[in-house]
């Protein structure tokens, strides 16, 4: 279980996150909602360790990760698909996938079948440079790269941003498949309400860097949406 307790984080002088507490239980798909600029990506970065926490803690399965470097968090089972995908543009698609193995347990030299099987377009593009792929292809590559190390928690930061509808459907199917497997839990940031409602188990709404609302799918009604999410 991934647990964030009273987390505070920010850039430079400004504090973005105040007192954020959330939990991702095993096998759950937890969605993080909120308008632009409320700190969703900042929270993802703090969980991954790219941003140092000013206060509070991040722990996984009872192990405190607050002071740990991103690499150690990856090795303890957290996979990350960042906003903007962050593919290594000069490296080939296959090399990008191999880098996903860095955090894998034990010595693995081949990308596991199940990571690739979910994205059948990738093997045909192994030799191409990551930077030459289209946005949607890069997103699938980033997804597969994160899955290569068989993470137990997957952080997905806006996986459908700027992507054609058919690939959005593919990504939805992948998330559902992961959920049905029950081995990997997911923390998902996504703007599209339809999308999160179709995959999510539990929802957190951020406002001004703090958790303003949380609840299950049934509780996420029009009033909550009007209050926290409509622009």
């Amino acid at each position, binding site marked *: 279980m991934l647990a964030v307790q009273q987390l505070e984080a920010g850039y430079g002088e400004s504090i973005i996150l105040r007192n954020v507490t959330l939990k991702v239980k095993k096998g759950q798909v937890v969605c993080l909602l909120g308008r632009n600029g409320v700190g969703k990506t900042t929270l993802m970065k703090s969980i991954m360790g790219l941003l140092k926490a000013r206060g509070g803690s991040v722990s996984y399965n009872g192990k405190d990760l607050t002071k740990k*470097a991103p690499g150690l968090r*990856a*090795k303890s089972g957290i996979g*990350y698909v960042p906003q903007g995908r*962050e593919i290594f543009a000069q490296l080939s698609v296959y090399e990008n996938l191999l*880098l996903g193995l*860095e955090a894998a347990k034990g010595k693995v030299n081949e990308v596991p079948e199940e990571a690739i099987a979910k994205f059948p377009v990738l093997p045909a593009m192994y030799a191409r440079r990551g*930077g030459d792929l289209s946005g949607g292809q890069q997103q699938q590559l980033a997804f597969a790269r994160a899955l290569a190390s068989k993470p137990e928690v997957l952080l997905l930061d806006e996986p459908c941003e700027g992507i054609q509808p058919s690939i959005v459907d593919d990504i939805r199917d992948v998330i559902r498949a992961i959920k049905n497997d029950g081995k990997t839990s997911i923390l998902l940031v996504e703007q599209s309400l339809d999308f999160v409602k179709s995959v999510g188990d539990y929802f957190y709404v951020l406002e001004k860097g703090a958790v303003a609302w949380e609840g299950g799918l049934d509780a996420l009604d029009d009033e909550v949406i009007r209050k926290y999410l409509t622009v």
Partner: protein
Amino acid sequence: MDVFLLQLFNGLSISSILLLVALGLAITFGLMKVINMAHGELIMIGAYSTYLTQNLFNDLMPESLFNWYFVLAIPVSFGIAFVIGLILEMSLIRFLYGRPLDSLLATWGVGLVLQQLARSIFGAPNVAVKSPTWLDGGLKIMDGTLLPYKRLFIIALVIACLVAMYFYIYRSHEGRRMRAVMQNRDMAACLGVSTRRVDAMTFAIGSGIAGIAGCALTLLGPIGPSLGTYYIVDAFMVVVLGGVGKLVGTVLGATGIGMFNTLFEYWTNASLGKVLVFVCIVAFLQWRPMGLVAMRSRSLD
């Protein structure tokens, strides 16, 4: 005909020396973006390592084996420069990533310290390294045209270094991590790559290759504590002209400068030739500021 051949060979020879001197910098400056002014001193360290190896052979080995000291001197130079580069990275450079001006000043200071250190240990006058006898003489291709073995050996050494570097950077696991870290440090860290380890190794390897360059320079003449200062400008010129971050660019940059240098010197004289080369480089960089081989891709940045 033989004049043309000889000039072509001279050009190649100068290119190979420039390339060898710049290869290490292509890693520390080209890939890591550290303006490493101590690069010349790492070359100097390599040269003195060769000198030391020679002296050890003189003292300890039978005379018949002396000629083989040079074979050992190459890995020794690499090793000593590698270790010094590693120490330098861990004690200083790692605090200065992303701060080009600070790293420029600090590495320049380190360079001065290393020069003085060499002066204190080996003395200020130049010392001579006796090249092995199997590198004396040359390959006679026609009357009056002799290609010295030393020059040929340096060309071969550069090719060997290039091939080794190519395989390390583009074919090995370590090299893949290295390229990932240099392109996108944060993401590489998030995937579980130890960026600290990669930084230290990369800098040390760049330093080690500078050491090999120093070893090769002992074939060309006596060596002294300020040996590196003669080559540091050329090395930066090659890397900048070639285009930062690409091995192919460094090769093209060195070949270009070496060939044009020879050509202009043949047409005019040594000092005017050098000036003309500089003018050409400045003009070229005005036209293409990214250098010969610029990274182009549909990356999203």
